[in-house]
């Protein structure tokens, strides 16, 4: 954790010591590492819905966000919708990029790399004949996702590429998107 450049203080605003401490503590307390993430979604009207996120479970007890967050989702006018929010698939892209970007900042902090700016642009191809049921051979989801990072930091291009690679390795949303997950949907 120490380098010869101790005089230079790298601050990306990520408390890496706390994260490393948590990792150490959770190795011997795997029960506390079991989290449950939650969201509730209410239909507003048309294709418009509103998600509310406030609580989750972790470290052995119920936890609360500092405030309640809401997200509107809808579909654009070309889908004959009212466009009162981003489409759900766009929120997936936002989730992926937010997760990777948090990882970039944390890994950079851990590697003592000062970030000046980080921008990700994302594009995902989709053939909407899938969701329209127009062709059974076309899947509903993305054909692929392309993420492009522009990063200004005190580091070589190779070190920046390594940051981005490592953030994918440790990203939850990247894993959720690249690997299958069992999904159970029930009616209460």
């Amino acid at each position, binding site marked *: 954790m120490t380098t010869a450049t101790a005089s230079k203080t790298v601050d990306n605003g990520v408390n890496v010591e706390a994260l490393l401490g948590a990792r150490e503590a959770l190795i011997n307390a*795997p029960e506390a590492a079991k989290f449950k993430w939650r969201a509730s979604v209410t239909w507003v009207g048309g294709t418009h819905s509103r998600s509310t996120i406030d609580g989750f479970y972790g470290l052995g007890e119920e936890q609360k966000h500092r405030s309640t967050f809401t997200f509107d989702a809808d579909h654009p006018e070309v889908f004959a919708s009212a466009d009162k929010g981003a489409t759900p698939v766009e929120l997936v892209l936002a989730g992926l990029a937010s997760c990777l970007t948090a990882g970039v900042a944390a890994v950079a902090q851990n590697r003592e790399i000062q970030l000046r700016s980080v921008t990700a642009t994302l594009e995902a191809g989709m053939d909407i004949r899938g969701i329209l049921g127009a062709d059974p051979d076309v899947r509903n989801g993305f054909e692929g996702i392309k993420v492009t990072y522009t990063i200004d930091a005190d580091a070589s291009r190779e070190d920046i590429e390594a940051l981005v690679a*490592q953030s994918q390795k440790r990203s939850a949303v990247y894993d959720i998107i690249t690997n299958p997950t069992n999904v159970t949907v029930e009616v209460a």
Partner: protein
Amino acid sequence: MRTTTVIIGAGQAGLAMSWWLAKHSIDHVVLERGEPANSWRTERWDSLRLLTPNWQSRLPGYRYQGSDPDGFRTMPETIAFLSDYAKAIAAPVRSHTTVTSLRRHVDGYEVTTDKGNWRCDTVVIASGACNIAQVPSVSASVPDGVDSLTTMQYRNPDQIADGGVLVVGASASGTQIADELQRAGRSVTLAVGEHVRIPRVYRGKDIQWWMDAAGVLDERYDTIDDIVRVRNLPSLQLAGYPDRRTIDLNSLTEIGVKLAGRLAGINHGKGQFSGSLRNVCALADLKMNRLLNSIDEWVAENPASEGIDAPHRFDATEVEESPALLVDFSRSGIKTIIWATGFRPDYSWLDVPVLDRKGLVRHDGGVVTESPGMYLMGMPFLRRRKSTLIDGVGDDARDLSAHLVAHIKATSPLSTPLVA
């Protein structure tokens, strides 16, 4: 029967420890379920050669004497080398003696075998890190009509049905088997998770020569930031081909092997592969280049070595635009799945509570501190990066035998078998 130390396993680790115990005049036996070098005899495929060159087999009191120091031993040669070592050092090996239980007894240990019981003050577990092929839980969903075998069961291409083969795992075993089967006319898909890419030869020297010369292999476990991570790294993507060619994902793609991501699931006869192939390849390329950078830096600081070529870099791993995510085994003609997904040790006979959650022995550099007098050898990065190499067990045996001798002195001063 009674002795001071029982060594379990007559592979390179157990034999090296035997040499050091003999030097300390410690009365001991080496219990071996088969013949010395048993795993090398019975659990490896036919064409396999050691991944380390012949010269890199410096055991205590013994080394390679042949005319091909840069070559790679075949399995029969490896077996002969270790058997000859056992004979040369007159190791007290009890062959065909299977340990069925190891438990504490008074201040020492009792070792039960199928050929009688041993009482001892100290015990060295040198039974190896690779006793059981580790197979992921998705293997339970392999559809009917698709053969499934591990690298321990694989011998040669004649065993494998014509048509498609899915090799799961792209470390040393998986890449070599994929290469062999593709060249034998099978149509191979390789499922690639995290792997360690490394060239066989760099700047005219074997990669093992570099790691030896630059001291990388001597790095100690207590100087490593994250020892859990390095102990769990997959094996180096290396092969010991006589022509010293490098095996990597690019060389496999070139002969027609199809690359896919990590096998994430099998559902309704379809393999589901992770979409992370591009990133695991990027990680491996970056890590390889970091190693090559450190070699270049070492050369700059240690000039005057002869026969060293100019620095260069290898092509980045090529990944096709859209690697397959879903493969229907029957439609794509895959009739065999080979699991090259690693190994774990077998401690089913170990009746001392020293195993962690993952079923591995808790230890501090091979000293099993929770059970005084118990030692472990031959595990990844036990004391040094080279701890699992034939070339690496000697230093570990020296250190651990010194600890063992001190333990005996401290605990039984009257019955000490030490000769001053």
